[in-house]
């Protein structure tokens, strides 16, 4: 019993550490930013939010509010960038999804999207139901349930009941693995820098990573693209319809 209590205390302490990053200063910056936004001073709001961001702290809510502020400032490229960042942290954020649609509707480029394999789309849809942390927590809960069922299987019931308990615990263990993998995949995605948004009003995409290369096509502010390769001052990119080219790094910003 005493052992259990110490474990519990340690657990509490650990979670405390995890959440204690938000100190007083950051909280006041956050409130000031929200107040500025509600007063219509979007420029000030962005400054407050940026100060939080500069401390190396992120959250879906912070990115989302920054996106909103940029949208109100009519800086569509930035707004889209921050909405995408919100979704990168929390793919389940429905507000960010809606607002991203608004911002995207005002971009100039209309690119036919090459659809993914339907099975991949399904998996991605399920994966984007929770954030990485959500899936991690779920996997912990599920592993607990799995083990509980194993205990039940071991110590309770007759032959037929035992069979059911065993199968159930196997299934739950499968879901545990899935949610663990989802969590890992989302974390990897969030840390990757494979997508970017065009920031300049006109970005020339060239056939080679130098200014003398032929221009292949032109992208406009707010268009999302995939970074395939990075070179000195240039990035090899791919747009949704599969076309590739080189664009100057200064033209884009990584999500």
């Amino acid at each position, binding site marked *: 019993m005493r052992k259990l209590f110490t*474990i519990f205390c340690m*657990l509490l302490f*650990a*979670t405390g*550490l*995890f959440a204690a*990053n*938000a100190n007083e200063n*950051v909280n006041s910056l*956050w409130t000031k930013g*929200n107040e500025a*936004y*509600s007063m219509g001073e979007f420029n000030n709001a962005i400054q407050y939010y940026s100060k*939080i961001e500069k401390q*190396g*702290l*992120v*959250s*879906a*809510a*912070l990115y*989302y*509010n920054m996106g*909103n*502020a940029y*949208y109100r400032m009519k800086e569509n490229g930035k707004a889209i960038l921050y909405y995408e960042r919100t979704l990168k942290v929390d793919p389940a954020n429905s*507000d960010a999804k*809606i*607002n991203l649609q*608004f*911002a995207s509707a005002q971009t100039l480029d209309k690119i036919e999207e090459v659809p993914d394999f339907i099975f991949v789309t399904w998996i991605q849809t399920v994966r984007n139901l929770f954030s*990485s*942390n959500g*899936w*991690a*927590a779920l996997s*912990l809960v599920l*592993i*607990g349930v799995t*083990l*509980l069922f*194993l*205990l039940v299987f*071991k*110590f309770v019931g007759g032959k037929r009941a035992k069979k059911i308990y065993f199968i159930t615990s196997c299934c739950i263990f499968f879901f545990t693995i899935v949610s*663990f993998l989802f*969590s*890992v995949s*989302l*974390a990897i995605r*969030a*840390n990757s820098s494979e997508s970017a948004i065009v920031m300049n009003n006109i970005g020339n995409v060239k056939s080679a990573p130098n200014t003398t290369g032929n221009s292949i096509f032109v992208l406009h502010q707010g268009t999302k693209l995939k970074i395939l390769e990075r070179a000195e001052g240039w990035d090899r990119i791919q747009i949704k319809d599969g076309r590739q080219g080189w664009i100057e790094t200064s033209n884009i910003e990584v999500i």
Partner: protein
Amino acid sequence: MLRRSFRILFTVIAAMFFVTVFSGNKAMAQSFVLNAPRVVGQNEQFTIAFSSNGDVDNFNAPSISGASVLAGPSKSSYSSMQIINGRRTDSHEVTYTYVLQAGSSGTVRISAASANVSGRSMSTRPVSISIVAGASSQSGQQSSGYSGGNSGSRQQADNDYGYSTPVSSGKADVFMRLDLNKTKVVKGEPIIATLKIYTRSNITGFEDIKFPVFNGFWSQEIETPQNINFTRERVGNQIYSSAVLRKYMLLPQQTGKLTINPAELVCQVQVVSSQRRSRNLFDDFFDSDAYSLVKKKVATGRATVYVSPLPGNAPASFGGGVGNFSMSARLTRQDIKSNEAASLIIDINGTGNLNLISAPAVTLPSDFEKYDVKTTNSFTNGASGASGKKTFEFPFIPRSEGKFTIPQIDYSYYDISQGRYVTLHAGPITVNVTKGTASNSSYVTAANQQQVSNIGEDIRYIANGSPRLAKKGSFLIVSWLFYFIFVLILAAFYGLYRYLKNLVAINGDILRSKNKRANKVAKSRLKLAQTYLGQNKVQEFYEELHKALLGYISDKLSIQFADMQRDTIESTLEEKKIGKDEITGFMKLLDDCEMVRYSPEGAAGAMDAQYENGVKIISDLENKLK
């Protein structure tokens, strides 16, 4: 000679009256007017006429200066009566005519003449006629330009007066002009273009008329005379007969330098032949000069209009109007009921390009059913563009009762005189809709059910709760916490597993010891039976087994041996909550033992099993019966 002239003159005037009467003297209002030419040549003879459509008393002759009166005033009267479809129309004309000879220079002034027309005192306006020095009129247009005349008779009169007509076939005595009332305008500003022909010769006909082409303009003919009426006009030092061929209203639709392509026309002109033809008696008698018909092509010059664009700062409510307008808005009626049609009427009054203005933007309440705008034009095209009224009707049907407001209506136009945009305002108008008739009520309920329509769409509001900030790139899945908790869960599982296993083991020990004791009891009870089993004594074995079973039950359940009936044993065991299986097992074993006692054959082989069975049943009961 003079007498004859007068006679012919009077026939001309009579003919003229005939024309005027039949061309539409329908108005019965009294009039008293002076017909006189605007310009006359030096020493030219001409006539002036005061005419009235009623009985004239007390004609007060005007004083005439600058010209000598050759004859007059001579009074002539004319009356007619018509009965058409039983309606009687009377017309009456009285004319006082003077024949004057112009002086050598200056102007002829004719002061006001007054008369009593049908009992009303009326007077003409004073008129001045300028004398063109050095020029003599070619066509002795007796009847002057104000009322027009008959060119055929004019020619005759001319010759009879014996005017010298210094016209030769080669001279440019016919020309055509396109007059624009302005050449520097803003886009949309109305221009009046007048196509006029000027002649000093006698024109007998026109051919191949090519009217001007107005590229870059919206054009409308505002005067297309059926009869070409010549009036006298002074051009330079000459007197010409001029006539309006067409009058256009032009609205420039493009900016910059716009050129109007020239109009062309071929005239048949009568000119005096320089040499006489064969002098026969009739020629000499009827005609003092010889005339020949000449075709002459005339064309206007190329006219240029400079159109400047409207200033760029046009208000949103600009409807394309250029000119000077006013606006008023009203409802067709005041008592508007739901489900009954009504209209909002907006009148744009003024002058300018009324034809081209668009309807003002009106936001009717969303509960009103709206219909297409009806436009009614009631304007006349005049010198400064169209003037009058353009009416826009916005029909609507209110679908529910209540008080509605039509917000203020703004309408902007470009004011030419001020050189800027002017915005007109009307409203706001309050519409009080009362409940309509009951017959419509079912429709109302149906119409009132409507989707909650979006007025506008916007992004969602910011997140206001706790930001739940975390270090960038930190995730639970890669944190130590996750694995710590994972290990904790495993540890908890293991702990729990060990605990439960231990618990089961202890429980198992108790069970085992209990069984051991029960087994011992059973074995001791069946000791004798076991020996008989070893000696293979079937009869004795079963007897002993039977006895042992009953003895055990009797001891255990404290039932007297004498009361040992099947029913008693069964019910008592049931009372002690012994399972049905065990009871039947016990009973069957008892039955088997009894069976062997009465028919011992064939039971020997099962003795081992029966013994084990007995041990099992007794130990089970021993475990369960406390």
